[in-house]
């Protein structure tokens, strides 16, 4: 066993560092550091996606024939870790990491040829139409209907918690094409042009004060049948496949370490009156760091299994759960570290383009919103309760 990377991998690590040093501008870094929502806004996120694409690194998980870089699992890990360390923008995952793999796995040649290059280049910006007001954890109870009319589906219903629907020009959605006994049957996976007539979007502000999610309404929206991915009625299978990607991105520890480092720097700074001198904060910081060590090690164990072609088993739920819980512990620590300055609310967005001098030091602005918005980590992508159900079933065989 060996915890270190080999010479070839270290050379790759250097290549990534060089790329980051040249391409990650101070403006992009600052904007990322001052963004308290999960994903960067498209002006920042897509600017970064274009740089990655220009280098041929736009879609690390994709097969080579569709523009993937043909990396080993170790290279992917190094890439993600270095990017996190450098503080790159959080590119909205709906395109490259979510709908991309489904189109690659189940789409027609025409769909692949049309959509994949547009995802890579950032020309298309995607959102996900899964949850509905009545269908949260029990996602397959969804009611948005697509009724066949000639070569089109007519869609009626509503989707909610739709991240960046207000920026997106496309949505991938699960819609009901058939009423059937099992609620998982009769669901289809459909690609929708957000400019279609009959679509309206209502903003929803999260408790941190950010506009990241929306509710989307469909009123007789006409979508060509050719926009369906895979077979009619099999959408649940494709959707679940994709949820695995949402949960098991598999490389979260580096981002957590970076978030902890940010909080640690605040804690040793005069800006927080050296919060680190509170022994409780110092100890909790170690506690969180150790939790990140454990998560990283589990990720590396999974990576090692993948490298040799083994199936790592049903660990994606464990990784998702721990990642979300540790993320919340870091943001909670952040609130304690900044103390009184956490009382100041700055309603304007984005923090990196304020037209006025903020009431508290700029770097403290995202701390409380990150904690507040961060409560969603244990809810989206399958709540922690759902993950525990999955672990009981898949890991323990209950």
């Amino acid at each position, binding site marked *: *066993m*060996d915890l270190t990377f080999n010479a070839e991998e270290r050379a790759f690590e250097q290549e990534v560092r060089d790329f980051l040093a040249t391409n990650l501008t101070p403006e992009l870094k600052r904007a990322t550091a001052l963004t308290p929502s999960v994903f960067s806004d498209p002006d920042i996120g897509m600017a970064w996606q274009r740089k990655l694409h220009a280098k041929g690194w736009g879609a690390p998980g994709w097969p080579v024939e569709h523009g993937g870089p043909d990396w080993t699992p170790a290279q992917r890990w190094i890439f993600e870790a270095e990017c996190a360390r450098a503080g790159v923008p959080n590119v909205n995952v709906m395109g490259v990491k979510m709908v991309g793999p489904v189109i690659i796995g189940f789409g027609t040649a025409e769909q692949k040829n049309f959509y994949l290059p547009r995802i890579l280049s950032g020309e298309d910006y995607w959102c996900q139409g899964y949850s509905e007001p009545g269908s949260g954890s029990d996602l397959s109870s969804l009611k948005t209907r697509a009724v066949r009319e000639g070569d089109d589906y007519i869609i009626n219903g509503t989707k909610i918690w739709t991240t960046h629907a207000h920026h997106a020009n496309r949505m991938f959605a699960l819609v009901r094409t058939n009423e059937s006994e099992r609620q998982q049957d009769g669901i289809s996976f459909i690609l929708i042009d957000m400019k279609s007539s009959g679509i309206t979007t209502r903003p929803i502000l999260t408790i941190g004060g950010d506009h990241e999610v929306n509710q989307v309404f469909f009123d007789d929206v006409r979508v060509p049948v050719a926009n369906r991915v895979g077979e009619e009625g099999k959408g649940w299978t494709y959707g679940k496949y994709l949820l695995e990607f949402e949960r098991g991105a598999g490389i979260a520890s580096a981002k957590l370490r970076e978030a902890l480092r940010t909080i640690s720097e605040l804690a040793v700074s005069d800006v927080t009156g050296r919060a680190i001198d509170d022994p409780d904060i*110092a100890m909790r*910081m170690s506690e969180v760091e150790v939790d990140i060590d454990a998560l990283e090690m589990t990720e590396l164990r999974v990576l*090692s299994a993948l490298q040799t072609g083994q199936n790592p088993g049903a660990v994606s739920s*464990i990784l998702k759960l721990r990642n979300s819980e540790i993320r919340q512990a870091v943001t909670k620590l952040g609130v304690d570290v900044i103390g009184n300055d956490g009382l100041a609310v700055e309603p304007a967005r984005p923090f990196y383009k304020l037209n006025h001098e903020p009431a508290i030091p700029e770097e403290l602005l995202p701390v409380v919103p990150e904690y507040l918005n961060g409560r969603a980590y244990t809810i989206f992508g399958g709540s922690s309760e759902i993950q525990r159900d999955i672990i009981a079933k898949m890991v*323990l065989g209950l």
Partner: protein
Amino acid sequence: MDLNLSDEQRLLRESADRFVAETFTADHRKTTANEPLGFSAAIWKQFAELGWLALPISESYGGLGGGAVDVGILMEAFGRGLVTEPYLSTVVIGAALVTECGTEAQKQAILPEIAEGGLYLAMAHSERAARFDLGKVETMATKTGDGWRLNGAKTAVLDGAAACQIIVSARVANANGSSGKLCLFVVPAGTAGLSLRDYSRLGGGRGCSLDLKNVQLPADALLGDGSDALPAIEAVVDRAMAALGAEAVGIMQTLLQTTLEYTKIRKQFGRPLSANQVIRHRLADMAMQCDEARSMALRAALMANAEPVARSRAASGAKAKIGKCARFVAEQSVQLHGAMGVTEELDIGLYFKRLLAFDTLFGGSAHHYRRHAALSGRTQA
């Protein structure tokens, strides 16, 4: 970067798992509990034949030159069977102290004999006033005409009564009587002035308190050349904590498995306990914490030879995290067994106690999070 077991390691794991499952049964535990040494000398010989005693000892001294990961594989199997043979005291700690500090002659004399199964060792280091501070030792060693005289008192000497030789730490008195460097001394069992209060150890095995009153030793009882032994003690204890962590993982895994099976069989309100979501989620948390503990034990083993701060941070991080996970898994295993869990009629209680002993040894979670914070520069040491 490769965390897969090598073929040799896979074989080691298979043979250790098989041997432990066949040998360390519940009946076996009942028998050995009454043995004066707390373990079986015959099984110790088998450990020697299997090459386990030679495993981490250097090839130059009759060993196999294995690493911390190999030791962890063995310790995890030992955890599953609640093995009480003094592997930690003799091989993981004793042989390591001799390797780190001993002179060539001492290594030649001691290490091959350990590998062959002819020698039990114990470490007498902890003292009441020190709690878990490895640097705090009040036992004094005074230079006499042709040797040393030791005075002091030690606590938590694991397997002290079985040991043929006890490695005792003491401060060497300076000429003016003030205390100086920390040194280690090899004290043969039965030396005049040694008095042991032997006890049955929580969770299996034996331990003792040790008083040293004018214990007279020859000059060559000093382990090594007399340089400060604290860095070596810290290194050896860090590695021992990694090994103990692996043992705890084996214990936790057994508790999880046993509890899981029980909740499937035990019926209340007309259905198995495991049909209840609150039980399923508890078990999911236990499984998750077992997995985190596994990751941390492996991490500490892989960092066992890193530079001292990184090594100690990994060891303390692992000890703290595994201790926390172990207590959770142990307490929930008892909880989910209901009233039966708090009786001595099931093995659950024994596994519980062994994990409690694990969490206590070398300091609990709070101590090690504090040590981690100090080593990370977050607090003053």
